[in-house]
């Protein structure tokens, strides 16, 4: 699993909004940096890295929710969750297959056919997940998600004004 990139310039006194901008910026770039090769089912770590990066981005968006405009943040968070779900649909069978193969290897030969049958079923699920992921990756480009996330990040840097719509008590 890829190590999370450090968020530069944070210290205890950093303005919360500036920390939000830096965290969402770094975490959003991280997601898209991992997009290459995720459809390769022979290297299951790639999709894992992108999924983990998506989780980290989602976490940053939730922790710093109070720093963003309610509607844009909500809409982008929904899109990031949808991406995480599609990555999960591909990743979950990867993990299950690896676990079942590991268990089967420890069992008697007579026990293996049933488990191999279940693995075959999961491979079909993995293929379906990969097809959905391929479609989602295509949509990513069209929806300019990365660009919109980076733009959202910058909004947290603006000085707060009384008229600004903030999630003062939003989930974090």
């Amino acid at each position, binding site marked *: 699993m890829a190590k*999370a990139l450090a*968020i530069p310039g*944070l*210290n*205890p*006194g*950093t*303005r*919360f*909004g500036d*920390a*939000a901008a830096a*965290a969402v910026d770094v975490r959003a770039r991280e997601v898209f940096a991992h997009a290459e090769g995720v459809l390769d089912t022979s290297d299951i770590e790639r999709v894992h890295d992108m999924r983990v990066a998506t989780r*980290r981005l989602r*976490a*940053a968006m*939730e*922790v710093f929710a*109070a*720093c963003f405009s309610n509607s844009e943040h909500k809409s982008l968070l929904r899109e990031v969750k949808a991406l995480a779900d599609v990555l999960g649909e591909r990743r979950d069978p990867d*993990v*299950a297959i690896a*676990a*079942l193969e590991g*268990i*089967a290897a420890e*069992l008697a030969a*007579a*026990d*293996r*056919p*049933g*488990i*191999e*049958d*279940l693995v075959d*079923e999961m491979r079909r699920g993995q293929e379906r997940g990969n097809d959905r992921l391929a479609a989602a990756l295509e949509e990513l480009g069209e929806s300019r998600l990365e660009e919109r996330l980076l733009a959202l990040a910058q909004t*947290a840097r603006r*000085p*707060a004004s009384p008229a600004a719509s*903030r999630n*003062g*008590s*939003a*989930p*974090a």
Partner: protein
Amino acid sequence: MKPRKVKGLDPDGPLAENARRIVKVRLAELRSFAPRALESGEQETLHDMRIAAKRLRYVLEMSEPAFGAAADDGAKAAKKLQDLLGEIHDCDEMLPRVRAHAEMLRAQDAAALRDGAAGAADLEPGAAREAPNRARYRGLESLGTYLTARRAVLFESFVRRWEKLESTGFAAELLDGLNRRSDLNPPEPAPATPSDGAAA
């Protein structure tokens, strides 16, 4: 599971103060699931506790620059808990699939035997030897047994881990650590605004 709301967050305030508010709520949220999770061991509560551990971990990881080792240690403890609960969750997810798969094979076999006996008054026991999936049940039964046992072992391990965390006062220690660290690092002065200083 929807996260509890954190009140009083201020985008213009310092990271440390805001992060401490969030950690406090996330920590309380995690602990609130423990009594039911420990007593019942039920899937849904353990799942909610895992999500709560994950949320605590993420806020601690993100606030490590503000709180240093206290946040780092707390994040590591939350991750260990999250991982353990994740393994239990994997068993809970896999077991019904194993049972459903065995059930599907049985249904296929019963249909095949019935079709093979079309028009017969009864079915001979020896017909079971011809069931197409007969070699597959055994492995699925062994797998189901293993997963059931592993789930029980992991749950006991979770109970011990949680009791150890509570008996060593991890929650109070974490909050003390965060307070100490931010005492050492008072907030920076607010950044200058255009109205500060000499006018252009």
